[in-house]
């Protein structure tokens, strides 16, 4: 006795849809620019420059808050948060660099 396959009654096995790699595009926001070519010193200087810029913005808004020229409260709080996080980030990068330097200095020579 033979049992015929279920294909004969119209069953189509499921084939998962495939996507060609060319059709998959980055949705933006996750694109990373490589820092190749810039030295660590430049990276740190850039970081400090940016820190200065955000702190400047935060300071300006703080003055506006004090003089009553501030239109939206959240403008200041967001700027202050940004300044604080940027400061923490810059310090973290500096600490990590110092750690690396000390690690190298502790290397036995000869």
């Amino acid at each position, binding site marked *: 006795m033979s049992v015929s396959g279920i294909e004969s009654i119209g069953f189509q096995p499921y084939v998962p849809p495939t996507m060609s790699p060319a059709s998959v595009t980055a949705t933006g*926001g996750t694109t990373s620019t490589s820092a190749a070519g810039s030295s660590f010193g430049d990276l740190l200087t850039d970081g400090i420059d940016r820190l200065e810029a955000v702190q400047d913005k935060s300071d300006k808004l703080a003055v506006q808050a004090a003089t009553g020229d501030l239109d*939206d409260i*959240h*403008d200041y*709080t*967001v700027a202050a*948060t*940004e300044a604080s*996080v940027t400061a*923490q*980030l810059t310090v*973290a990068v500096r600490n*990590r660099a110092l750690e690396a330097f000390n690690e190298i200095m502790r290397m036995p020579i000869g």
Partner: protein
Amino acid sequence: MGAFDILRISGSSMGMHQTWLDALANNIANVNTVVPTSETAFQTQTPIVRSVPGGGVEVEGMALSDPEGRMVSDPGNPMADADGYVRAPEDDLATQMTQLVMAQRGFQASVQVTKDAQDIYRSALEIGRR
């Protein structure tokens, strides 16, 4: 400033909700503002918003309610016309209060996103810390 996109986006949301709340405060303040039938009624403002392609939201403009308003019978009012009618704003207090709740909750949600963003940044800074 890619690293602070969460702050920028939620900041734009807070800005939009702030504008909405400002408009609602004005609408609610004028909910009992009636004018003689010969004049146009107070027009309530509702912000028209749109999403920003790079993320965020912005106020595109203000929609004004019908200047015809509602005809209210108030014969005792010194501004009433010969038939005893005055012109009241089109939108009533209930509509405005409902929108006030929506705007307030929207603003609070954006504040919460900002708080969470701070936590996220803090945990990112924790990476590798000893």
